[in-house]
């Protein structure tokens, strides 16, 4: 005989509609002609569920006596004897009354299945064995009825009956789940929105687990709150050429593939005179990068690959995007390009070499020899030492030329050296050339004497021309270099200005840009010796620690750590410093403006508040005084009734005055931090009735549901009573006459939550914080709400006792105030 199939309806909480859904399915099957019998269904008196039973065949239950009470259970033997095709058995996790054949209902179900009967059943997520402790932690309720996960997992089908917490709470408030007197308490306890959300998530996850075991591993790997530990950072290197657009878009796509990756574009401004960047192109690309959500950076460096990698490492980049070299094949023979060099030095950073339409087209004439690097000076000296003796040798053994031609050839050599190596090699070449000419080519040959005056003049002219030419060459080279440097500086400054204008905190952005541009460790701005802003690591706090110091004005000073500044860089840093001073002033001004706004607001508030307080103080004072003055009057005789009324007037007014003064004093004590709080262990069930007594006749309209097993709380009894009085008075004020406020208590972890629930108009969620501001009511329009101290004071007092006071919507309309206080452990 084939074993029956088990179908389980899983729900996150009571009331989501498991039984109802199960019965729907039972009807569907019955209509198809299947023999369906209801072995056990618990309707909990819910009318929709009751109606759903309809004409289904309901098997009688078995009545069991236990400890003097009668219980009804599923009659297992009767079901087995009836042997329907499908048995409907509610509450899979139910524990049978002792003395039954099986301890648990799920064991009964196993027997049915073994007998070849298909079973439809229901279970709540809190009854699953594996989730038992989690559920207990969330809800604070220990579950005794559990069912092993394996049994549920073995079911042929598990169907989730899902409902959003809000809908469930609404359904509850409408009385569809529990009887009316249990509703408010349940909403405050098990059916808290937070509870239901957590339970629903548990149910969904448990089911997802069932569907896909992979998910479990995924969650274990990532942890439930996993954030990306390391962010991907993609750095795109821009040369200033037009291919940069392609590179930026490509890098943005790479960044988009990794969720949350950062995009950073960097342009290395070369300070060796080889700058080929077009500022207009760069500024356009900057806008492009920023529009794609990236940031633009600029660094100065002679060695592009090294500067690029330094930047990339400094920002913890994981990937670099570079364009394929656009240099010609010939140029690539002589030196490896930036891409190749960067790749070889990149270490753990991935380098993407991206091809673009301008690759390998060559760049048009831009690499003119300009600056005199050390290498070129050495080459100049080498050329002098090797070239002049060679020239001498060639002229000596070769066909004999006139002295004039010899001199011109030597002059050409000197000019060549000066073009190659600048002034100093040229000077050496001129002196050496003149000596060689003298020794080898002017009679008497082989001696350093000159016989003819003409020759002496020629040699002198040779030296002068050689020196002049080499000086001109050197000066030109120096100018070119200066121009290149100035160009780089100008680019940097342009970037500075742009960055400062754009940023939200201009000063920090500016200092950061400075640090980045000069590859510094830290930059600090001091005002009269006090640090006002700093970026980078190991900030200097005193002038002595800094590698460089720039004075801005009499008060401001900028300290740089990382490397000493050369004179040219200093100029730029000074410009930065001046900008920083402006930025600082700007930040201060906007801070002042921001501070002035609330001040003006406070001032307006204070005036209105003064009016409100003086009204609230004067009004009861006026009534009391009027009443007392009338009683003292000799000219009129009041009868006993009037005297009584006048005395009551005085009494009520003075009471009101007393409450107001007490609230005002407490509020000021609270704000001054001078409130005396004596926390002891108290029971909320003692405090609440006392507080309601204080409210006078109105207090009797408040319904109290406090379970017996609520632990003691750690609180000041006097203050707690005041809070409850305020909350209850508020709830009474806004409750409709036919729907009284309710006070409930529940346990959540280590806190006890006291809920004051009203069914009044409620407060929109965006105003929840405002109601806790003191002096909400301004002016003297309304005599009933007081100065608006009640809630502000209640929250202040609660927090002084280490608790919290938060509002929540009452399902079905109204406001619920949740007063959470630490429970006394061990009770």
């Amino acid at each position, binding site marked *: 005989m084939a074993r029956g199939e088990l179908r389980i309806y899983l729900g996150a909480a009571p009331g989501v509609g498991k039984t109802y859904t199960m019965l729907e399915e039972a009807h569907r099957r019955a209509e198809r002609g299947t023999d369906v019998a209801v072995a056990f269904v618990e309707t909990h008196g819910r009318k929709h569920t009751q109606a759903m039973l309809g004409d289904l065949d309901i098997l009688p239950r078995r009545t069991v006596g236990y400890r003097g009470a009668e219980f009804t259970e599923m009659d297992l033997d009767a079901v087995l004897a009836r042997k329907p095709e499908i048995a409907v058995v509610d509450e899979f996790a139910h524990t049978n009354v002792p003395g039954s054949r099986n301890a648990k209902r799920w064991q009964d179900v196993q027997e049915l299945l073994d007998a070849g009967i298909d079973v439809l059943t229901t279970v709540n997520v809190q009854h699953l064995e594996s989730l038992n402790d989690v559920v207990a932690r969330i809800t604070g309720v220990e579950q005794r009825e559990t069912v092993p996960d394996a049994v549920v997992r073995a079911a042929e089908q598990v169907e989730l009956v899902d409902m959003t917490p809000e809908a469930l709470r609404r359904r509850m408030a409408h009385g569809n789940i529990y009887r009316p007197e249990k509703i408010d308490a349940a909403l405050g306890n098990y059916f808290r929105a937070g509870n239901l959300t957590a339970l629903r998530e548990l149910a969904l996850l448990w089911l997802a687990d069932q569907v896909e075991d992979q998910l479990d591993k995924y969650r274990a790997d990532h942890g439930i709150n996993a954030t990306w530990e390391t962010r991907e950072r993609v750095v795109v290197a821009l040369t200033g050429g037009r291919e940069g657009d392609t590179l930026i878009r490509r890098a943005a796509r790479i960044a988009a593939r990794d969720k949350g990756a950062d995009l950073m574009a960097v342009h290395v401004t070369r300070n060796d005179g080889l700058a080929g960047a077009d500022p207009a192109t760069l500024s356009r690309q900057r806008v492009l990068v920023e529009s794609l959500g990236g940031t633009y950076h600029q660094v100065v460096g002679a060695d592009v690959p090294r500067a690029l990698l330094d930047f990339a490492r400094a920002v913890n980049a994981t990937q670099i995007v570079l364009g394929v070299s656009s240099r010609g094949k010939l140029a690539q023979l002589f030196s490896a390009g930036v891409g190749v060099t960067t790749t070889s030095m990149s270490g753990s950073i991935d380098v993407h070499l991206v091809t673009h339409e301008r690759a390998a087209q060559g760049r048009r004439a831009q690499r003119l020899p300009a600056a005199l690097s050390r290498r070129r000076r050495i080459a100049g000296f080498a050329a002098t030492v090797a070239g002049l003796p060679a020239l001498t040798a060639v002229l000596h053994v070769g066909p004999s030329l006139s002295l004039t031609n010899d001199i011109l050839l030597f002059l050409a050599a000197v000019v060549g050296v000066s073009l190659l190596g600048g002034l100093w090699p040229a000077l050496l070449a001129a002196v050496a050339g003149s000596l060689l000419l003298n020794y080898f080519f002017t009679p008497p040959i082989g001696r350093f004497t000159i016989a003819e005056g003409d020759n002496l003049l020629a040699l002198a002219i040779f030296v002068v021309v050689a020196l002049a030419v080499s000086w001109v060459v050197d000066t030109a080279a120096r100018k070119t270099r200066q121009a290149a440097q100035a160009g780089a500086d100008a680019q940097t400054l342009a970037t500075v200005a742009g960055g400062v204008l754009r940023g939200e905190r201009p000063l920090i952005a500016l200092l950061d840009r400075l640090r980045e541009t000069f590859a510094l460790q830290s930059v600090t701005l001091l005002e009269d010796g006090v640090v006002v802003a700093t970026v980078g690591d190991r900030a200097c706090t005193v002038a002595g620690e800094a590698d460089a110091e720039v004075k801005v004005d009499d008060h401001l000073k900028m300290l740089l750590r990382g490397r000493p500044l050369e004179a040219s860089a200093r100029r730029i840093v000074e410009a930065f410093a001046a900008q920083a001073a402006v930025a600082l002033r700007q930040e201060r001004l906007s801070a002042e403006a921001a501070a002035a706004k609330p001040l003006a607001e406070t001032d307006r508030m204070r005036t209105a508040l003064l*009016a409100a307080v*003086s*009204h609230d103080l*004067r*009004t*009861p*004072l*006026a*009534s*009391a*005084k*009027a*009443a007392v*003055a*009338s009683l003292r*009057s000799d000219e*009129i*005789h*009041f009868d006993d009734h*009037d005297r009584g*009324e*006048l005395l009551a*007037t005085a009494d*009520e*007014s003075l009471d009101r005055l007393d409450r107001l003064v007490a609230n005002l004093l407490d509020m000021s004590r609270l704000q001054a931090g001078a409130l005396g709080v004596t926390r002891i262990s108290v029971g909320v069930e003692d405090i609440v009735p006392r507080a309601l007594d204080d409210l006078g006749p109105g207090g009797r309209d408040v319904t109290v549901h406090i379970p017996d097993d609520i632990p003691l709380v750690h609180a000041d009894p006097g203050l707690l009573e005041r809070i409850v009085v305020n909350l209850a008075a508020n709830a009474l004020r806004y409750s409709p006459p036919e729907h009284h406020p309710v006070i409930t208590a529940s346990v959540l972890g280590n806190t006890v939550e006291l809920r004051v629930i009203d069914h009044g108009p409620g407060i929109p969620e965006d105003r929840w914080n405002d109601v806790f501001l003191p002096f909400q009511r301004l*002016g*003297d*329009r*309304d*005599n009933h709400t007081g100065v608006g101290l009640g809630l502000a004071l209640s929250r202040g007092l609660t927090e002084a006792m280490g608790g919290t006071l938060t509002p929540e919507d009452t399902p079905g309309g109204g406001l619920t105030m949740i007063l959470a206080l630490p429970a006394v452990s061990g009770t």
Partner: protein
Amino acid sequence: MTRVLVVDDEPQIVRALRINLAARDYDVDTAPDGLSALRSAAHHHPDLVVLDLGLPDLEGADVIRGLRGWTAIPIIVLSGRADSRDKVGALDAGADDYVTKPFGVDELLARIRAVTRRAQPAGEPPPVATIGRHRIDLAARSVATPGT
């Protein structure tokens, strides 16, 4: 007998005044807010109004203007607002006197006597205007046309 309308949203004040005035043989009407004050005035035609400025529905000055639209009966403002701007505002709106809370009962009574003495004797013309056939009752804000 002089009829006084006491307008205040504070029940204790109203009660103290009612007892005092009644003991001195005034007829007393009371109203807890501006609109019922205007209604009561139109209905009972009091000889004097004692008015609080901070009412839950209307500003006291608006109540004064509402009354002054059709009657010149004395109005004494009885308010917790002690600022001179409030006093000027209320008096300019048409109040006859201004007493600040807390107040001496004797002083208030003396001021009530003073303004009633100055006020027109009982021959005050009814607040009714006639335009052609139409009879306009300014207090009740109603227009009656015979034959319609």
